[in-house]
């Protein structure tokens, strides 16, 4: 008989893990910077990819709604950031990011309400339309959004008291805050009845409705939640690249996010982090390998893309449940070898 009715404070546990991770990462960034400032800059990209992937993995992995439009939702967050900052250059980033999150959430209510009526390929098609169409809006209203060239976003600079901190380190530190907050909040949510309801709907909508779940409403909640993450991620992306431009939110961004959550481990929050690391670092490594070998330019230009695809195919063959799934399996193998004989059944999916 195990832990009957033991009340474990989830907030405390998740916050401690989140804080520990955040502080560790902040320290690591500070230590790496003198040797490799570009790596620090890349870690900021990992932050926004991880936030967006975490939101998408809850929507697609747990709730079963496939979205090909999350790149466009990131665009809404990024443009909100750029427009808000246009008038007030030194507005507090926390305020700006909150504004981007709120605006994207509102947009997600509309998309989510439509999405709740659609299933499978229809939902994919509708969100695909969003990904393709939304950048066009930015071009059409060029007086507000700056057209093809986009709108610039002022770089974050450390306060005077911390003037010795390099700008890229400061950016990474700022990026870690919303990342930790997002993961703590989502971890809280996923382990409660909301997480169960999300998954129950994914598995069987009829049964979910019979047992008192408001299916459509819960689906909208999941969409808005994940849209909010995308908006926050988009805002951080704008700060990182100092720009909100249509070219930053192509369809491939949405697909990259999907690739990230699948390769990381669909429906798992740690998987979102693994996926973000993969989509940021793997293309870069492939690029540097490619540069090192001397190939004709026609081959050299196309090779990274093919290799990137190849890495995904091989990874999915090796880890059908993504990196997180593979790690969990390894860990269980070790645990069961240690306890030889007594096998524990699977608990939870996250």
């Amino acid at each position, binding site marked *: 008989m195990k832990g*009957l*009715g*033991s*009340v*474990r*404070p*989830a*907030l405390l546990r*998740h*916050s401690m893990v989140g804080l520990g991770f955040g502080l560790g990462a902040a320290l690591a960034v500070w230590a790496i910077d003198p040797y490799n400032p570009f790596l620090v800059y890349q870690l900021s990209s990992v932050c926004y990819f991880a936030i967006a992937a975490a939101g998408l993995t809850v929507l697609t992995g747990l709730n079963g709604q496939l979205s090909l439009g999350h790149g466009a939702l990131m665009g809404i967050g990024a443009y909100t950031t750029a427009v808000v900052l246009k008038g007030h250059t030194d507005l507090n980033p926390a305020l700006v990011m909150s504004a981007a999150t709120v605006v994207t959430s509102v947009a997600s209510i509309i998309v989510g309400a439509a999405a709740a009526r659609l299933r499978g390929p229809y939902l994919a098609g509708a969100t695909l339309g969003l990904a393709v169409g939304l950048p066009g809006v930015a071009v059409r209203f060029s007086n507000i959004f700056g057209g093809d060239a986009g709108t610039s976003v002022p770089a974050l600079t450390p306060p005077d008291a911390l003037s010795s901190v390099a700008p890229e380190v400061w950016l990474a530190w700022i990026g870690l805050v919303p990342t930790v907050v997002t993961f*703590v*909040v989502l971890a*809280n*949510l996923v*382990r*409660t*009845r*909301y997480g*169960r*309801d999300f*998954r*129950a709907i*994914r*598995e*069987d909508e*009829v*049964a*979910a*409705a*019979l*047992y*008192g*779940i*408001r*299916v459509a409403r819960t689906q909208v*909640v999941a969409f808005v939640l994940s849209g909010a993450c995308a908006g926050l991620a988009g805002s951080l992306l704008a700060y990182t690249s100092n720009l909100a431009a249509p070219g930053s939110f192509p369809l491939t961004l949405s697909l990259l996010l999907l690739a990230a959550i699948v390769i990381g481990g669909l429906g798992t929050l740690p998987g979102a982090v693994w996926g973000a690391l993969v989509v940021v670092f793997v293309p870069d490594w492939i690029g540097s390998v490619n540069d090192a070998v001397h190939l004709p330019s026609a081959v050299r230009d196309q090779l990274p893309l093919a290799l990137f695809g190849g890495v995904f195919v091989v990874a999915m063959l090796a880890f059908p449940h993504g990196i997180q799934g593979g790690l969990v399996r390894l860990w269980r193998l070790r645990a069961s070898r240690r306890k030889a004989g007594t096998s*524990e*059944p*699977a*608990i*939870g*999916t996250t």
Partner: protein
Amino acid sequence: MPAGEIVGIIGPNGAGKTSLFNVVSGFLKPQAGEILYDGRRINGVRPHELNALGIARTLQGLGLWRGLTVLENVMVGARRAARPGFVSALTGLSRSDRYEAETADLARDQLRLLGIEHFADWYPGVLPYGVQKWVSLARALVSRPSLLLLDEPASGLTSTEIKELADLLRSLRAQMSVALVEHRLDLIMSVCERVHVLDFGRLIASGPPERVQKDKAVTDAYLGEELTLNVAEEGADARG
């Protein structure tokens, strides 16, 4: 349908037994007539509102959520009116923690009542069909419904398991009314106080099982199907 009674609904294939359940649970709209529950008209109730009304229903194909553990399946069934909101779940307030722990306890108690608590952390897909059936019953029972709608609970069960099911249903009589759609006449005859027979959507007979079994209209409707089960005596001593 009187309180505390087990009512059987039988009829040939396509008679409208499951459709009747679908109308009551709001998946289909009645073309005519009223659905009265506890003196209230519940026409047009939406499926997700049933639970709050005290009606629980099992599905023919079990409808268990395969990606949720047995315990989690039953926990969803145990949803209570006083549950913490979205913000409290997001921020991980202790209110939400308490709800989770209490719901888990409720679900565990229900599993223990049915003798399957040791499967709590398993995923239903890997369990034998009979156990999955108990899980789906646990999910329906955990909300302490006053009306339980069972859609073919005996299908796929062995005869021993059907006997256990009959015992369980009889023990529920004190707590709730049960409506039973079933093909297995032996189960119907052994647990039901009353049987309604449907054919092509019409009620062609109702009454105590022994009488219904001899009804002319019923035997006509079942023409070609065997009604020669030795259920009469089994039903009699089961009730004794």
